[in-house]
């Protein structure tokens, strides 16, 4: 049996749509990451990659499991002493996963997405012997040299992955992986089409869980999951309700607590968002003809979404948010940021000023992944929504 044939998430099979979604929610809410352990138990190697975007095709092509390191609802009992104060939670909870042996990695990659995260590979590397590296994604995508530079950076990542995996990664391996991920991107786009067009067919937390699963299981398995469930979601006969249509902005790195997503889903339709935007960063199919690393680099620069941690003169974030709101026919926006998240908090100012200028209602909020009480927040959101409904 090849590793790509290894199944690590079987619980949903043969179940009703509701039960299958429940299994996904349980996996995503669990701090145990059992699917990753199952992969290891089958003899597989794991490449942990921190938020936001990582070219997972490269490690997938080596037969490794790309695991999205995105924090967890755990107390950073061991990690706390490795950090000072005034930091976001995701850094600590991510390292905690490793220090507590919840997940075991064979390599770890972070990116210069923010001042805090770019320290993470160095911190990780002082505590583990396996490769812990920064993948320097370009912060000047407007330069004529950025695609070639990134192609070399991806090639460097290929060479590193070959060492870890103990096998060569050929161009054909990469092309096959790109095809798998193209299929995944297509299915995720379809999921978001459902959210935007018929949000009453899928709860916010279910859509969230379906996306998050991509970071925890082999992508072939995720494709199978989505390909099976999306048609069933479309077949639902749930009636549309008179709810406010919201866009949630601020989930690009640290994730809001699952219960917060659930709470928003109870009170509104979340018709678009930037939850796990790295999983959906590439917005179109990546070409499979020609040089695969060049194609991946080109897609990062030219066929990609936006987030507060990428600077691109062509994509002012507030303009992109307004486009997201309009494309989703949203009534309002939740402009959130993780506590102590410098880029998120800074972007909030630009977002809110732009929304003011456009006369679009918004609700500003901060969150931390480990929060458990939302009574006050729910009351505020309900009041905000009632104001919109009865304005």
């Amino acid at each position, binding site marked *: 049996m090849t590793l790509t044939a290894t199944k690590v998430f079987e619980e949903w099979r043969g179940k009703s749509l509701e039960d299958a979604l429940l299994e996904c929610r349980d996996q995503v809410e669990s701090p145990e990451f059992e699917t990753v352990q199952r992969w290891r138990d089958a003899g597989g190697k794991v490449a942990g990659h921190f938020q936001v975007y990582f070219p997972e095709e490269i490690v997938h092509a080596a037969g490794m499991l790309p695991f999205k390191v995105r924090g967890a609802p755990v107390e950073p009992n061991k990690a706390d*002493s*490795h*950090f*000072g*104060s*005034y*930091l976001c939670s995701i*850094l600590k909870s991510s390292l905690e996963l490793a220090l507590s042996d919840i997940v075991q990695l064979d390599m770890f990659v972070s990116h*210069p*997405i*923010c*001042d*805090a995260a*770019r*320290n*993470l*590979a*160095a*911190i990780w*590397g*002082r*505590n583990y012997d396996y*490769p*812990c*590296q*920064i*993948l*320097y994604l*370009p*912060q*000047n995508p*407007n*330069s*004529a*040299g*950025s695609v*070639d*530079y990134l192609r*070399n*950076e991806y090639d*460097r990542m290929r060479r590193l992955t070959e060492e870890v995996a103990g096998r060569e990664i050929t161009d054909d391996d990469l092309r096959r992986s790109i095809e798998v991920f193209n299929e995944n991107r297509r299915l995720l786009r379809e999921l978001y089409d459902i959210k935007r067009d018929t949000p009453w067919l899928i709860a916010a937390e279910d859509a969230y869980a379906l996306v998050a699963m991509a970071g925890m299981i082999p992508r072939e398995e995720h494709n199978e999951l989505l390909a099976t469930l999306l048609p069933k979601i479309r077949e639902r006969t749930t009636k549309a309700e008179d709810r406010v249509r919201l866009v949630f902005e601020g989930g690009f790195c640290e994730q809001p607590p699952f219960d917060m997503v659930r709470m928003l889903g109870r009170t509104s339709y979340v018709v678009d968002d930037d939850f796990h935007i790295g999983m959906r960063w590439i917005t179109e199919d990546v070409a499979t003809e020609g040089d695969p690393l060049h194609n991946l680099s080109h897609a990062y620069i030219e066929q990609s979404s936006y987030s*507060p*941690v990428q*600077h691109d003169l062509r994509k*002012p*974030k*507030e303009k992109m948010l307004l486009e997201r709101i309009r494309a989703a026919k949203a009534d309002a926006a939740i402009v959130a*940021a993780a*506590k*102590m998240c*410098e*880029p998120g*908090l*800074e*972007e*909030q*100012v*630009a977002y*809110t*000023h732009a929304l003011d200028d456009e006369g679009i209602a918004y609700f500003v909020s901060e969150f931390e992944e480990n929060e458990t009480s939302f009574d006050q927040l729910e009351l505020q959101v309900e009041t905000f929504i009632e104001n919109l409904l009865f304005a």
Partner: protein
Amino acid sequence: MTTQSAQDLVGRGNREGAALFRDWFAELDETARNGGNAAYVFVMGSINEILKTFDLPVVFPEINSLQTAVRRVAHEYLEEAEDYGYSPDICGYVKADVGTQLRGGEHPMAQIPVPTMSVLTNACNTYIKWAEIWERMYDTPTFTIDIPGTRQSGTQTWQGDGDFEADRKYVETQLRELITLCEEVTGKKFDIDKFRQVLTYANTMSRSWKRVLELNQSKPAPFNALTDATIFLGVANGFRGTEAGARYFERLVEEMEYKAANGIGQAIEETYRLLFVGVPCYPIFRRFNELFTDWGGQFVNSTYLWFASGGTNRGFEYDLADPLASLAEGVLISVRDAMDSMFHQSEVLADMSREYDVDGVIYHPIKSCRTVSTGLADGRRHLTEVSGIPSLFIESDMMDRRVVSEAQMKNRIDAFFEGLASRRLAAGVQG
């Protein structure tokens, strides 16, 4: 040397540095009032080498911001930015600058001109967010020089390596694009001869800065790496690539060599030699230093002097025969080194502890700057494991007096020195 000329020499760097600072801000004030061009830049990779070739006055918002803290008016600027919408939990430098912009450039040292353009590197991600604020405020060009840093401690590549060449080429492409932008903004053609002259001045400064830092290995240390060196650092940034800057640093080397040769240190008796890791506590700058000097603690070097000089401490000198390629190489190596000073400094600190015969390391992470601060607790653990050198970890801020607790810091600093004293006593008894 006569007694009189020796007296003139000692302290000259501080006096001349302060005078240059006044000149610099006077120029900015005049530029602001005349509506002239000005480039906003940052300390980690100002690319002054190109900007000075185009005679662009440079504004360092980081320096403007820290000056509001030193002058004890930072809270006014921070509050103004927070009223505008910025969180108490983001970089204080950014907020003080936003306050300055909202006040139309009003600043304690000068009227600050608005940016004609801004140039930034990725050495600090907040630089990028910061420049986006100016984009929105002024709609003027912003240019990001993206400089790939070290991917993993100990894996830096160098000349002759394919990966290094790919990085260097990327930086060079961007520098050429920046030159085109400068030509558009200023209406001037790029003058390669003038560029070589600017690089010559920058080479003198780099060579001298490296030498100045080395000279503080002397006992007693000729200068305080926290206080005196902040003046030197200001000149290193504001006057990089200028004749005045080059001359200043040559004269600074002369002063420090004289002091080192003649055993001239600071006003205090140097009892303990310390390394400083982080960013100074500017809201109580003088007092913060006194908390250490009161015990005879002398700062002999700091990571701040490396990264806040954009890695000039490496002493990289440009090859004038191939100036643009060499600038790309120098910027890559120097700014990468500045980043290493923040993310991968443990090994260097261990070496430096020996070279500077250091008694302790002071870690000062700050709320405002996650670039510098995020890895310090873990780095300190590592340094303790590999070297056993005593260290102190105190958190406060470089701007925001609301998170500076002098009494709490003093307690911890006093306890640290008591520990050093006991350690020394025990070592003496054993000896």
